């Protein structure tokens, strides 16, 4: 049976077919759907872990205990998990362990576009790169087999165009893989220096064996075309090469670490010129060049952003055409698309109508505070018209950054400074930062935007929601207790829909030379039912347009008066609170 499947769902299917028993992840675009799908399969334990490091550790523990296990995360999540990863490469596994890294070339929903193939090389573990959903499924299964055959974690590296593209997948059945026996093996799993030294030797021996395997695996294959032009490629770039340069000879690498040195040498020897086509870092190219082999790539192709067939045609097309112009896809050379010579207003992503984050950022801007921000929907608070965020680096960075600012510029600076972080992000990587503020006598105010979910990635549960990934009831973590436990004495909860009180509390806490936490608590507007509708009473509107400073998609100005789109309005009432003319009122009665 064939099905059109999302790449991430194909990974989940592959893991299930491979008999995976334990899967763990923290949500992050473009990886989220892997665990969401695995949570639906019978015979699989799937969890939202608190962060990626824990996710990889849970998967590692399961693998060491004898169960096939998978951890999934976005590229920057691997940074968080890298501490575990680098040493798991030494310990090896017992049952198969697969780490899925979903990279995001072009930063569709990320803070950077790092190339995580470098992690595979750094950790000396195999790296597999599928080129479509079918391969995503198959390579997931191969990854488990490789993991067990070579006693190593295996990285399955996706990019957004693999993870979030759909293509046909042939479904298979689940292979029942019994638990492997668990026996104590401290010299393998307890990485004391003496044992670690021995295991490092094993890593080197393993790499030699994997390199030999790379030469013979069908994951790496040559598709012969015109033997005058060769292209070495992997992942999504393979599809672009096949489309852009249909006649060339292609060495498609499915296993991109370690590389098949002889296969590559033979391929390059068999063609007149050879190019490497890969997005982001010259990962393949630099290794191949280091062997003294003649390949060219990044001198023609960008190191920034993602490719498409035209990028390939424009990049190396002219060089290929020098050999044989017929090798190029003619239709990609010319672009006769209709053109409009007008500047279009941008349509950036925005906070939703009724978003509980809006009021807080409105106040932060009004109070002209310095805002150390964090990762989530609320990062949109940096955009116009709110313009209320100074920094956003990575998950949990807000508090460390705020403390560093205070230490650099003194306590007085902290009287105009806040750290802002979401509930899920706080539980992911924020608790340590807050502890550092307490321990090192910072005096900053931390605002936790508690919307009761992981909203940005599509409303996944976390320890504060009281539900697990499979929607089973669990212990609901109380944020107030957590922050008190971390040593914060000044803890207040505000409703971000109540601007007056929220502003009073923020002003008072920022002014106090003691560390404090304000929890701005209200459910994500996409999950809440809405609290009614508001409307503008036209005769009272003074056309001041103050309400537009909220940046609410439901509010506009028609040239004479403000207008509220009744379909989009959720009834948060912020506009009514800030209207100086009292021209916005709640709709009562049957129209509400």
């Amino acid at each position: 049976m064939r099905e059109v499947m999302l790449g991430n769902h194909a990974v989940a299917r592959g893991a299930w077919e491979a008999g995976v028993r334990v899967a763990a992840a923290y949500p992050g675009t473009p990886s989220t759907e892997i665990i969401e799908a695995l949570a639906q399969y019978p015979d699989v334990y799937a969890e939202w872990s608190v962060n990626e490091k824990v996710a990889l550790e849970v998967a590692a523990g399961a693998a060491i205990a004898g169960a096939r296990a998978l951890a999934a995360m976005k590229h920057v999540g691997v940074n968080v998990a890298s501490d575990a990863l680098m040493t798991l490469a030494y310990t090896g596994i017992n049952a198969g362990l697969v780490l899925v890294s979903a990279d995001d070339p072009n930063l569709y929903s990320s803070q950077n576009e790092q190339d995580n193939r470098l992690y595979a090389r750094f950790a000396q573990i195999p790296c597999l790169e599928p080129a479509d959903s079918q391969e995503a499924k198959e390579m997931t299964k191969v990854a488990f087999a490789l993991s067990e055959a070579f006693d190593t974690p295996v990285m399955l590296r996706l990019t957004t165009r693999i993870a979030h593209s759909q293509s046909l997948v042939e479904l298979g059945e689940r292979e029942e893989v019994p638990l492997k026996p668990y026996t104590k093996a401290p010299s393998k799993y307890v990485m004391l220096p003496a044992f670690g030294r021995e295991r490092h030797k094993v890593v080197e021996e393993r790499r030699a064996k994997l390199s030999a395997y790379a030469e013979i695996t069908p994951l790496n294959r040559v598709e012969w075309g015109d033997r005058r032009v060769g292209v070495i490629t992997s992942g999504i770039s393979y599809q672009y090469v096949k489309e852009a340069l249909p006649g060339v000879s292609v060495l498609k690498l499915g296993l991109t670490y370690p590389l098949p040195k002889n296969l590559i040498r033979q391929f390059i020897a068999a063609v007149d010129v050879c190019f490497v086509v890969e997005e982001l870092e010259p990962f393949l190219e630099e290794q191949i060049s280091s062997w003294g082999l003649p390949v060219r790539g990044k001198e023609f192709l960008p190191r920034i952003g993602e490719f498409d067939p035209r990028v390939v045609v424009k990049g190396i097309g002219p060089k290929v055409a020098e050999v044989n112009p017929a090798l190029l896809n003619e239709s990609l050379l010319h672009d006769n698309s209709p053109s409009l010579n007008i500047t279009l207003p941008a349509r950036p992503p925005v906070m939703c109508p009724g978003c509980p984050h809006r009021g807080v950022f409105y106040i932060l801007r009004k109070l002209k505070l310095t805002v150390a921000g964090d990762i989530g929907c609320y990062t949109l608070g940096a955009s116009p018209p709110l313009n209320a965020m100074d920094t956003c680096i990575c998950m949990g960075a807000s508090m460390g950054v705020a403390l560093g600012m205070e230490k650099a510029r003194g306590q007085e600076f902290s009287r105009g400074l806040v750290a802002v972080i979401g509930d899920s992000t706080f539980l992911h990587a924020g608790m340590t930062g807050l502890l550092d503020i307490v321990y090192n006598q910072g005096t900053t105010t931390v605002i936790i935007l508690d919307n009761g979910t992981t909203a940005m990635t599509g409303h996944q549960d976390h320890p504060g929601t009281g539900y697990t990934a499979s929607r089973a009831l669990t212990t609901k973590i109380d944020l107030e207790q957590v922050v008190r436990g971390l040593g914060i004495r000044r803890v207040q909860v505000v409703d971000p829909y109540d601007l007056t009180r929220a502003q009073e509390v923020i002003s008072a806490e920022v002014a106090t030379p003691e560390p404090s936490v304000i929890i701005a608590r209200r459910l994500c507007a996409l999950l809440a039912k809405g609290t009614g509708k508001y409307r503008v009473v036209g005769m009272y509107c003074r056309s001041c347009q103050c309400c537009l400073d909220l940046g609410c998609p439901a509010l506009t100005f028609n040239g004479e008066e403000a207008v509220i789109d009744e379909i989009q309005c959720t009834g948060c009432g912020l506009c009514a609170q800030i209207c100086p003319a009292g021209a916005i009122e709640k709709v009562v009665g049957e129209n509400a």
Partner: protein
Amino acid sequence: MHDQVISILLTGVGGQGTVLAGRILSRAAASLGWDVKVADLHGMAQRGGSVITHVRFGTKVYSPVITQGTADYLVAFEKLEACRCLPFLKGEGVLIVNDQEIPPLPVLTGASSYPEGLLEMLRARVKKVAIVDALKKAKEAGSAKAVNMVLLGVLARHLSIPRECWEEAISTSVKSEFREINLKAFTLGWESIT
């Protein structure tokens, strides 16, 4: 069979249902045995911003992403997004555009204005344009959210996929309680092309 790959770009505003439309289109095409690829975006991009879904089908499809200037069809759920994605359409391609205006935030806040006369501009530059009041038809079908089905109905009349394949794909892709409304909206779109 399509030896030539058919490339269809769906564009709109986050929340308008382009992702679901892409899924239905891909299922309908796959039911005829064609190779199919779809490329979507999730996450930050979805929060009320411009969204694009690429759909390609034929005997063999490599890239899931449509190269600019090569789309056979551009289905725009909103006028401004039609203009934004026009560079994807090939010279002789077909534009299906929903006659709906959703002002983006810079327009709402007064930082910029919604350009006037977009449909006229599009008509002047694209030979084959179908303008549809999909919102009106969707409401007629029973839900303003069924704009995507109306536009699929219009698109369907341009493609060689039998109507029952579409209806099957819709039925298996939407929740059962919304099936009737969606099928009706699709029919209204289908019948709007004579």
